Every structure is written in structure tokens, then in C-alpha cells.
């Protein structure tokens, strides 16, 4: 590897840097309470909530456990539980 001038790299390299192990709390989504409103996906600062065919899932490779999704979920479908290492 050679360093570039100004530490310039191609876009999207954060995908290679997994931040999931920063968590001390973990959001758990209760699918039966979820109304698929999309608030959690919009509010997640790390883009770690994915939606596919109307189904929501949390990407634990990148979720840092900040808890914003659980705080903002209007149906309380997301609960924060202690992370077990």
C-alpha cells in the first residue's frame, strides 16, 4: 500500500471498517409491533437500518448502539438491551 496525498481514498471505504463492536447496548426490533413507518431508518446516523420489501432489519456490523432508533420509534418496537461480549 502507498499513502496518497492528503489521505484521499475512493468513496465508500467505511464499508470496510466495521463499527459494530463499539456497542455497549443493542437495539432489538420486535417485528410484530413494527408498522414499517421508516422513522428509525431515517433517524439512524449510521445508515445501519435497512429496509427490503417493507421489512426492516438492523445491521449489527455497523450499529454503534446509540439508541436513537429506540427513542424515536412511535410504537416502541425497538428495545435497547445490554450488549453481551
Amino acid at each position, binding site marked *: 500500500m502507498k499513502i496518497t496525498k492528503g489521505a484521499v481514498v475512493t*468513496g465508500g471505504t467505511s464499508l470496510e471498517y466495521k463499527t459494530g463492536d463499539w456497542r455497549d447496548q443493542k437495539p432489538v426490533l420486535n417485528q410484530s409491533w413494527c408498522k414499517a413507518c421508516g422513522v428509525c431508518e431515517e433517524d439512524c446516523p449510521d445508515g445501519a437500518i435497512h429496509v427490503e420489501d417493507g421489512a426492516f432489519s438492523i445491521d449489527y456490523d455497523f450499529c454503534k448502539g446509540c439508541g436513537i432508533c429506540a427513542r424515536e420509534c412511535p410504537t416502541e418496537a425497538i428495545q435497547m438491551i445490554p450488549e453481551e461480549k
Partner: protein
Amino acid sequence: MSVVEGSEAVAMAIKACRPQVVSAYPISPQTHIVENLAKMVADGELDAQYVRVESEFSAASVVSGASATGSRAYTASSSQGLLLMTEVIYASAGMRLPFVITGVNRTISAPISIQVDHQDTMSLRDSGIIQLYVESVQEAYDTHIAAFKIAEDPKISLPVMVCMDGWILTHSYESVAYMGQEEIDRFLSPFEPEHFLDIKNPKSWGSYADDNVLMEFKYAVHQAMQDGKQRIREIFKELSLLTGRDYRGLVEAYRTEDADTIVIALGSVSGTVKESVDDLRSEGHQIGMVKIRCYRPFPFEDIWEAIKGARRIAVLDANISMGSEGAVGMDLKAKLYGLKNAPLLVDFIAGLGGREINKRALRNILQQLDTVGKKPPFLKEPNWVGLNPTLFP
């Protein structure tokens, strides 16, 4: 020749360099420069985005980001404003983003004052920004045109700060010879960076670096400065050819050939020192002066060339590293350490907060050199010029 305010001359130089983005926040004594540029944009004389922001931190961030998009960008600030830009300037140097800042010199609070000294720009000397100090309005005009060329040189690729004394240069009227737009366009080609922000080809700047690579990045910035000295010399030589004025070298040596005593200065005080040198020469003193034009990278080779025959050096430092001494004195002492025939060097803290450094002050400095000369060459303490002991409780 036109007789113009220093700030207007700088704005004319910037306009002629065709910046695409100008962003600034007002602070005395820098304000007239960006007011002039705002008027040029408003009147349709300058085709640039003029971005008004709520702080100097944002102004620096805007020009840094603009530079990353491949736009030529400019800002100016003074004193506390430069301090508020500091975080961004360090980051921009690390990201190798070339833009030009005018650092209009003004002292730093507290106590608050709007008068000139070099404390503000000197506090940025470690950031990786290239610093050029100017003596006159004409030199300010010319140096700004060279500044973009230096910043954007592919091997250098760093921000450049032109440091000019507030009020003394920004608000005084001097006669200035402007250059033609065509000549400037020939001298300064459009900015074509190696990397630029592009939605079709996304890139990140200054990405995360662990301890296994960060040191190499810092070394690369340092080397860009060190290797850049030769390139800056060449660009100054081109500037001399362009303007017909002598800008050969990173320093200017004035009557140093047979000088026994040499005064080292930066900025507008250099003119006063030259006058004093002439007076003292006519009285039989073998005295000369070296003006440091490029302070970072530090041009020791060029300074040594001019001072190596001298017995005594007086450094005028319009700044103080609290608890140590003046920045320029420290730099020089460090480089002289262990050299054969190193001259006696005395660091004088002078002109803080706009205290005048006039011919009388320079005579006092010479007298102090005479008394110091009987002591070991490296004094542990700097000499404060013109302190009034009756003011201390």
C-alpha cells in the same frame, strides 16, 4: 501607478487571480479586503461565489471544501478570527488543499486590542500552512498573485497564508503598479488538482489513519514544505520577471555584504530597519538587515547565506511564545546550534500590541547588543524592547 488603500490592492490581486469561491467573516483590520471583493462580485466584475458565513470557522471550512471540489478559493482574517480558523487550517494542510488566506496581523486578546503584532499568524506556524510575510502594499499585491501559484503547485499542494501588518499596510495608501490581466493569466494557469470532489467518482479526504500510517502522512506534509522551498524560490523568480521587481529568494538581504551586525525582521517594520541601516551606515556602523519573506517553510539556508559573515544578530520578534521566547529567535537558535562560527544571537521582543518600532527603538537595540556582547552568545531570556517598569505593581 495608482495610489490605493492596501486592502484594495490585495482585493485587486485576488480578483486578477480569478478565484471561484470567496468566503469570509468580518474582523478588523482585514475587513476592507473582503468588502472590496464583495463589491466586485455584486457589481459583476468578479465571477465568483461569495459565501457569507456566521464565523471564521465556517469561512475556513467553506474555502477548504471549495478547494476540494477543484475551485480556486480565498479568505482573509485576523487575530481571534485566525485562531477560530486554526482547526480547519491544520486539517486543510493535512488534506493538501491549496487555498489562499490573507492573515492580516493583529494582536491576540487579552487584553483586547486591534493593533498589530505577529502573535496571530505565528500561532499557526506549526499547522502546515505556508507563510509569506510582506513589507509594503506593492509586495502584498505581488505576493498574493504568487501565493496561488505556490499553493496549487502539484508538488506542494498546501494552503498559503500571506501575512500583512494590519492598519500599517491594510489601511495606508501607497502607490501600486497593477499588472495586466493577460500577464497574470499567463503566470497563473487554472487550478487543476490531482483529486477533486465529484459525484460521479466519489472520494474521501483526510480519511482515518491508524498509527501505522499517520506518521508518514505528517512526514509527507513536512517534506512538501522542505522540498517546496526550491519551487517557491523559482516562483518568486518568475514573479520578478513578471513584475520587474526584485523577488529573488525567500529572504531579502539589505547591505549585509560586509555587515558585522545584522537585524532580522519580518513585515512592514523592515522598511524602518532599512532606513535605520542607512543612517547607521553613514555614521560608520557596519550594519545590515535580513527580511524573512517566507517564514514557513523556514529558509535557514538563505538566511545563513546572508548572515554567515556577521558577528552579531538581533532578531526582532513581534510575538512571544509565553514562557519561552520569540518564535523567529527560537527557530534561528535551533538551526545555528553546533555550527562553526555561529554569531552571537539576541532575541528582541518588540512591537507587541502595536507599540511602535521606530529608529530610536532600533538604536536602543544596538546599544543593548553592545552590552550583551560581553556575555555568552546564547542568552536564556529574550530582551523586551521598551518595557516600562514603572507600570508593574
